[in-house]
C-alpha cells in the first residue's frame, strides 16, 4: 500500500473506525444533453442502517442510485463532470466519488461493487428477463461463478424467503405485479448483497402487496437505501431520511424529525405523512 492509499483508506473510516457501507463525496453528474442531475452529493451510510432517499420527481434520486452500482459514469465518460478532487493534480483518471464498504466504485472494482450492492429496479419487467422465475433468480449467482446446481439451490432459498417458491417454474408474465416485484427482490438477494438499494419499491403495488413488501424490507439485515415517495412506508422501514432536491442533499436526519417538518417538506414538493399529523 502506498502512502496515498493508506491515507485514502483512513479517510474512508468514520470516527468510530467502522468502514461505512456507502460513502459518497462530491458526486456530480451531467447527462449527455448537459442537464445537471447531481451537483455535489455527500452522503455516508453506516452498515446496517435503513435510509430513505426522498425528493420530488427529477430530484436525481434514480440517477444517484445508478451511481452506487457504477452503472452511470461508465456510459457518460467524457461528459461526466466530477467537481471535487483529492489534492489537486492533473490526474487524467476519473476522480472517485463513491465507495462501497470502503471499496472505490470504478471500472476495476465494478464486479465486486455490483456483488455488494443489490439494485432493485422500479419496473420489474426491466429486471426479469428470463423465461422462468427460477432462471431469473439464479442469474446473479450464475454470474458469480456458481455451478448450475448451486445457483439453483440459492435461488430456491431466496424464492422461499419472498414466499414464491411455488412460482419457480412459471414465466414472469404470468405473475402479478406484486409477485414480479418480489421475484426481483429474490433475484437481487441471491447475489447476497451487503447494501440493498431499492427504487420506488412500493410504487404501483396494491395495499396487500405493499404490506408484504414492507414486511420483507423490514426483515432484511443488509444496509438499506430506498428511494421513494411513499413516506408512510418510510416511517415503517427507515430510521433516517435524506432529502434530495435539485441534485443536492437538502436535509438529512432522523425520519420522525424530517417528516414532521411540514415547511421543509412542502418546500421540496413533499407532504407530511398522514399518520404523523394524527395523534396516536
Amino acid at each position, binding site marked *: 500500500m502506498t502512502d496515498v492509499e493508506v491515507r485514502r483508506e483512513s479517510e474512508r473510516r468514520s470516527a468510530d473506525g467502522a468502514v461505512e457501507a456507502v460513502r459518497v463525496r462530491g458526486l456530480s453528474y451531467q447527462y449527455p444533453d448537459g442537464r445537471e442531475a447531481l451537483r455535489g452529493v455527500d452522503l455516508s451510510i453506516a452498515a446496517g442502517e435503513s435510509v430513505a432517499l426522498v425528493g420530488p420527481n427529477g430530484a436525481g434520486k434514480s440517477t444517484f442510485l445508478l451511481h452506487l452500482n457504477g452503472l452511470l459514469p461508465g456510459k457518460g465518460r467524457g461528459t461526466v463532470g466530477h467537481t471535487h478532487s483529492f489534492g489537486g493534480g492533473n490526474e487524467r483518471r476519473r476522480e472517485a466519488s463513491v465507495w462501497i464498504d470502503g471499496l472505490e466504485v470504478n471500472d476495476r472494482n465494478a464486479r465486486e461493487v455490483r456483488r455488494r450492492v443489490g439494485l432493485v*429496479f422500479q419496473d420489474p419487467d426491466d*429486471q426479469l428477463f428470463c423465461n422462468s422465475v427460477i432462471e431469473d433468480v439464479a442469474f446473479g449467482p450464475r454470474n458469480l461463478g456458481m455451478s448450475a446446481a448451486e445457483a439453483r439451490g440459492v435461488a430456491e432459498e431466496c424464492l422461499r424467503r419472498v414466499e414464491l417458491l411455488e412460482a419457480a417454474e412459471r414465466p414472469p408474465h404470468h405473475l402479478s405485479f406484486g409477485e414480479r416485484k418480489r421475484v426481483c427482490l429474490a433475484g437481487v438477494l441471491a447475489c447476497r448483497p451487503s447494501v440493498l438499494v431499492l427504487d420506488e419499491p412500493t410504487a404501483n403495488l396494491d395495499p396487500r402487496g405493499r404490506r408484504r413488501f414492507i414486511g420483507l424490507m423490514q426483515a432484511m439485515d443488509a444496509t438499506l437505501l430506498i428511494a421513494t415517495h411513499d413516506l408512510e412506508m418510510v416511517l415503517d422501514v427507515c430510521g433516517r431520511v435524506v432529502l434530495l432536491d435539485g441534485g443536492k442533499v437538502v436535509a438529512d436526519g432522523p425520519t420522525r424529525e424530517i417528516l414532521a417538518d411540514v415547511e421543509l417538506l412542502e418546500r421540496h414538493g413533499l407532504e407530511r405523512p398522514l399518520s404523523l399529523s394524527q395523534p396516536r
Partner: protein
Amino acid sequence: MPPDGLERHRHASSPLHRLDARVKLLGAVALIVAVLALPVVAWRGFGAVGLLLAFLVGLSGIPPRELARRWLGMFVLVAFLVAMIAPAHPDRPQYGLAAVAVGILIKNGLALLTMIVLAGTTPFARLLVGMRKLGMPAVLVATLQFMERYRHVLIDEVDRMATARRARTFRRGGALSWSILGGLIGQLFLRTFERAERVHDAMIARGWDGTIPSDF
C-alpha cells in the same frame, strides 16, 4: 396476462409433451423438409403426412379447434402467397391452376401444422434448452429467449398505447390516419429502445459480464 390458447396446453402431459425437446425439434424440421420436398401436387404424400400429423395431434391432446384457429391466423398470408405464386408456377400447365393452388395451400398448411403442434407440446423454455443442446449458437438462443420474454411486455404496452389513443380519438370507427399510426410505431420503438437500456443495466447490476452462459 392470462395464458393464450396454446400456452394452456403446453404443460399437459401427453406422450408427445414428455418427449425430449431435441427429438421433437429434429422431428419437426425433418417433417417440414419432407413436406417441402414433395412435388406441388402429390395427393398421396399429403395424405400420408396428414395422417401422421393427425395421429400426433390426437396423441398431444390439443383440441383440433385450437389448431385450426392458429392456422387460420396465418391463412391470410398463405392465401396471399398462393395468389402470387400459383399463376406463375411451372407445374401449372400440367395440373391446372386450381390443383396447384390447393397443393401449395396444403403444403403450407402441413408445415404450419407441424410447427403449431411442436409449439403446443413444448414449453418455450424447454424448446430453447433443446436448441442449445443441439448446438445452436448461444447468442441466437438468448435472442429468442429475450424475444419470448419481451413479446408479452411489448404487446401489453401496445395495448395500453392504443387504448390511450382511442380514448382521445373522437371519430367513430375508421382506420387511424397514417401520421398517427407512424407516431405510435415511432414511440413504441423509442420505448423499446429505452427499455433495452434499462434491462441491460439491470443485467449488469447483477454481475453480467457480457458472456452468455452455455446452459443459459
